[in-house]
Every structure is written in structure tokens, then in C-alpha cells.
């Protein structure tokens, strides 16, 4: 189809779909009037039953923790998929890194950038760790903290230059962390099975609400999610960095 035909066909059908969708939406109760009984139940149950003050974290890591396990594995799978798709092909050779590529002299980071990056590193690290470990009390948790932790290592890239970043050869360690994080979630769940409880049921004592250890196994899950997400985002960004900065060209061509 030409772009024109396609646009016309789409507009005809899409308008219909839009009308159909809105028609269905208008059958729902208006926004802001009520929330489901399921939600009310969880809001009232979470603090007494689980000592977790952030209900969203409780839903994510406990009541519907199995969803989150699936979600973490989607991240894991995507990372592995990206690594698979970006692997150096048989018909490709990795050429010298960008510094030596003609006309591509990578400028070294300026001192100002270095100082900024270095001085931001420590607070970001702390913030990341805080976010991962306090998900059961405040907004935040493994996912958000994990992304923040990943940015810390990207500061290393900003502070130094890419060559140092590459030479750290942390790739293997990061991949190990990625698999450990993914496996960690499952292992916390399996611990319950070993103790003859349903998968993912809490097996640790609950400290009073509002403290770091209040969530039982939730902080452990949050930690493994944090590790997995941090490692995953790092692997993703380095895979794209490699792809962007290292010349891969066809053999003999």
C-alpha cells in the first residue's frame, strides 16, 4: 500500500475504533468516584497483616509478587535478547575502538565534566541504595533504585573516558549480577516451598511497621530486583554503547 492509501484506510477504520473505544469507556463509572473493593481491602490489610506502609510495594512484591517475578524476567529476557541480537556476527570484525577510527577522534572528557561526574557519584550511589532498601516504607523500591544504581556506573564513563570503562572488563561480573538478581527472586520464592508454604509466601519475622526490616522477605526481593534491574540497565546501555562506539564492519569489506 502507498502511504496515502494506508493513511486513508487507517483514518476510516481508526476513527471507528476510537468511537468504539470511547463508547465502551463511557460505560465505566466516572473518574474519581469509587475504587474497587479489592483495592479497599488491600489498603486496609497491608499494614496490619504485612507491616508494610507503602501499599504499592506490598502489592508489587507480595500480594501480586508473582507478576513482578514475570516482569523481572521480561527485563532479563530483553537484556539477553539484546545481547543475542548485538553479538558480533561471523561475518564481522571488531575494528579498533573509535579513538583510532578516521575522523572520529573522541574528545577526552573535560575537567568540569569529570569533577561533576565524580562529585555526583557518591550521592547517587547512596540515593540508589536508599531507594532499593526503603521501598516497603516510602515510594521507591527495587526497580527505581536499580535504575539509579545503573546511572552511577555510567558516571564512571562520563568521568573517565570510554577506554577505561571498557578496560574495567566488568562485563562478566555484571552478567553474573544480572543472573544472580533474577535467580534471587525465584530463590526467595522457593525458600517458602522448602518450608512447606506456598511459593513466595513470607518466611521471615516481621519487624514493626516503618522500619527497614518491616517487610519480611520483601526487602530481600526488592534487593534482588534492584541488583537485576541495575545490572540489566547497565548491560543494555553498554551493549548500545559498544554498538555505537565500536566499529563493526564486514569481513573483507
Amino acid at each position, binding site marked *: 500500500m502507498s502511504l496515502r492509501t494506508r*493513511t486513508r484506510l487507517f483514518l476510516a477504520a481508526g476513527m471507528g475504533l476510537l468511537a468504539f473505544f470511547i463508547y465502551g469507556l463511557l460505560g465505566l463509572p466516572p473518574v474519581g468516584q469509587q475504587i*474497587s473493593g479489592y483495592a479497599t481491602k488491600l489498603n486496609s490489610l497491608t499494614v496490619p497483616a504485612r507491616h508494610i506502609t*507503602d501499599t504499592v510495594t506490598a502489592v508489587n512484591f507480595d500480594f501480586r509478587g508473582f507478576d513482578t517475578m514475570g*516482569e523481572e524476567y521480561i527485563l532479563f529476557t530483553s537484556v539477553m535478547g539484546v545481547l543475542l541480537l548485538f553479538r558480533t556476527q561471523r561475518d564481522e570484525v571488531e575494528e579498533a575502538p573509535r579513538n583510532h577510527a578516521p575522523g572520529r577522534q573522541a574528545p577526552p572528557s573535560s575537567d568540569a565534566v569529570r569533577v561533576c561526574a565524580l562529585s555526583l557519584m557518591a550521592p547517587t550511589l547512596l540515593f540508589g541504595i536508599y531507594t532499593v532498601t526503603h521501598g516497603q516504607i516510602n*515510594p521507591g523500591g527495587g*526497580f527505581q533504585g536499580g535504575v539509579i544504581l545503573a546511572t552511577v556506573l555510567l558516571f564512571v564513563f562520563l568521568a573517565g573516558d570510554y577506554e577505561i570503562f571498557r578496560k574495567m572488563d566488568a562485563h562478566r561480573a555484571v552478567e553474573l549480577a544480572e543472573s544472580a538478581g533474577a535467580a534471587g527472586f525465584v530463590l526467595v520464592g522457593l525458600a517458602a516451598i522448602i518450608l512447606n508454604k506456598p511459593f513466595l509466601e513470607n518466611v521471615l519475622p516481621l519487624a514493626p511497621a*516503618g522500619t527497614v526490616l518491616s517487610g519480611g522477605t520483601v526487602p530481600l526481593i526488592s534487593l534482588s530486583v534492584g541488583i537485576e534491574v541495575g545490572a540489566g540497565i547497565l548491560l543494555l546501555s553498554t551493549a548500545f554503547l559498544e554498538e555505537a562506539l565500536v566499529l563493526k564492519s564486514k569481513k573483507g569489506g
Partner: protein
Amino acid sequence: MKMGFGPYVLAAWLFFIGLYGIVTSRNLFHLILCISILQSSSYVLLLGIGYRTGAVAPVFSDIPVNTPAVDPIVQALVLTDIVIEVTVLALLLTLAVQIHKRHGTLDPDKLSAIRG
């Protein structure tokens, strides 16, 4: 003053405009970002479903447990959805980069390896 159906209509609009972008796209990166607009339609919809006027966020660290709060479940669903979205986008982006490597273009009109 009431919220009415505002968020729902916005969700429907994002649904439509996202699909429009995908269909008319001339660049795969553009197409992928349109998918992300499409995805955000579901965030708005879910959030609208779980909202209660005048209620607080479902975090009870500083407030009594029986304070009316909004729906925590839709928030958890949106959280999950955001993670899913960004990871799937990364995969799509990788495929787009590989397409550019193999076909030398990002224009879907010029991809011709499969037909019939």
C-alpha cells in the same frame, strides 16, 4: 467540579494517535516512540480507573491506616507495565539498529526482504 471522563478520553486519544503514528511512520525510531505513546494510553486509563477524588496516595508511613487512599493495585499494574514497556522498546530498538545495519535504511517503505 468533577473529573468526569477526562482521563478516559485522553486515554482513547493517545490510543488513536499512537496507532496513527505507527501506521504513517517513515522511520523505525519514530515508529518505536509511537508505540511508547500507545503504551502510555494504558497508564492514563488505569490511573483514571483507580483514582478517587480527595483520597491520598496509598502510603501509610505518616498517616493513619484508615485514611481513604487511591487504588494501589492499578499503580502496581502501571509500574509493571512501565518496566515491560521500556524493556520491549529496547528490544525493538535493537532490531531497528540491526535493520539499519543490514538494509541501510530505517524507512519501512524501503524494506524489501520479505514479500508475498
